[in-house]
């Protein structure tokens, strides 16, 4: 009997998700033992046309990481949706937009200008990317960049969500184990639409630091202080996204004295991670005079980037006014 087929693809992402999968160490051998890896551009050579030639639904499991930034991303998302039985939005970019979605705060023109027309770029003729260009050999094309970055779910239906930037390797290993057990008839799949490989509550739940009543009169950056290794970072004035971020990572960052950046996204039942974070952070400010509050708030230079570092595409407002205008 032939083995079930496995695929993994990256779109707009950094490649960290792929590394996290390889970081499962010998568990990766289980993938090879139980699956036939048919498409995984980072790890092996394969062509899009090979995938196109496959029968619909012939791939059992596809881990799709990265946000939808251009029409190539969307094309492959649609293609893999058609060919896969289980499509998993893998990692923060695919589930919530991730770091690439911070570009939604700008419009396409200013992104191009920053990338191609600033003083650090040698581009005397101010040439910007063209989607089509005629060469002596024929016309060449590059993907068209979309005005906004979208999540995978905003383009195709998704079966499961696996958050994290990247998902923790032990969580990936657990998910691989589960799928293998399902194949052997020893376990059942979670209901469609479930978040897998993560907890249901917050990072604070898993954090071992001591928590008292939080009262903050100044926000500080982690590099400017020597943090107390046993006390809650937020209590020390460091902006930590733990209170409104889904757990499952084992509070890896706060344990290493780095504030949680919020990569596991919103918790169960929360509609907008950024709004919940904002609520939690503002509530610990120990000031009653609006002027004093404003002064303390000056310690948060970029609230949008802070509270929506990984969730801009999936958030309620999704993007800035300018980005939506195209």
């Amino acid at each position: 009997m032939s083995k079930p087929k496995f695929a993994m693809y990256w779109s707009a992402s950094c490649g960290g998700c792929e590394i996290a999968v390889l970081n499962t160490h010998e568990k990766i051998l289980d993938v090879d033992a139980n699956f036939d890896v048919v498409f995984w551009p980072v790890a092996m050579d394969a062509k899009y046309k090979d995938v196109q030639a496959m029968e619909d639904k012939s791939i059992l499991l596809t881990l799709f990481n990265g946000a939808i930034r251009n029409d190539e991303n969307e094309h492959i998302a649609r293609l893999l949706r058609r060919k896969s039985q289980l499509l998993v939005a893998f990692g923060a970019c695919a589930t919530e937009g991730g770091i690439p979605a911070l570009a939604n705060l700008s419009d396409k023109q200013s992104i191009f200008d920053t990338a191609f027309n600033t003083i650090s770029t040698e581009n005397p003729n101010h040439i910007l990317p063209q989607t089509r260009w005629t060469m002596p050999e024929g016309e060449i094309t590059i993907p068209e960049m979309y005005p906004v970055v979208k999540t995978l779910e905003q383009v195709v239906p998704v079966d499961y969500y696996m958050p994290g930037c990247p998902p923790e390797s032990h969580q990936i290993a657990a998910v691989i184990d589960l799928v293998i057990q399902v194949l052997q008839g020893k376990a059942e799949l979670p209901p469609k639409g479930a978040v897998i490989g993560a907890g249901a509550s917050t990072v604070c739940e898993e954090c071992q630091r001591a928590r008292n009543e939080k009262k903050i009169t100044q926000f500080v950056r982690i590099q400017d202080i020597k943090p107390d290794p046993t006390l809650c970072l937020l209590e020390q004035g460091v902006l930590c996204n733990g209170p409104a971020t889904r757990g499952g990572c084992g509070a890896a960052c706060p344990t290493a004295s780095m504030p949680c950046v919020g990569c596991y996204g919103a918790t169960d039942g929360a509609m907008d991670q950024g709004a919940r974070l904002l609520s939690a952070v503002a509530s610990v400010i120990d000031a009653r005079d609006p002027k004093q509050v404003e002064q303390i708030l000056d310690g948060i230079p970029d609230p949008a980037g802070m509270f929506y570092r990984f969730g801009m595409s999936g958030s309620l407002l999704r993007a800035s006014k300018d980005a939506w205008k195209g």
Partner: protein
Amino acid sequence: MPDKFEPLIIGFTCNWCSYRAADMAGLGRMKYPPNLRLIRLMCSGRLDPTFVLKAFADGADGVLISGCHPGDCHYLEQNYKTQSRYLLLTRLLASFGIEPQRIKLIWASAAEGAYFAEQATQIVEQVRALGPLNWHTRRTLAKAQSEQLSQGLEEVPA
């Protein structure tokens, strides 16, 4: 199309002071524009910033938040938390491109019906001057644009 833009303002009032202020404005037949839709919360501290974002995402042009005067909160000091959240929220909305004038926080006691009516009039006029926020239209527009783009999708050469 109406000649004059009629803004939609969602108002969040607390049960103890500002909702009663609005009530008093009504009882006293004080006039203020009908653009304000009130939602009563037990306390202004109950106002999750999500409510405000959802209001904007679903078509509101402005949001009015009102609570008891500082020191008068029925739940001791929740309105101070509302104040901090409001100040941070306006900063966040500004970086999203939503003008701070579209959101307003006022303190109104149960006796301040006239003040409530005056503030309601003020935010309606303020938002009217800014024009529609049209977030939902923008979202539909962006969706239509990207659908148009995806219809033009071609097979990507391998």
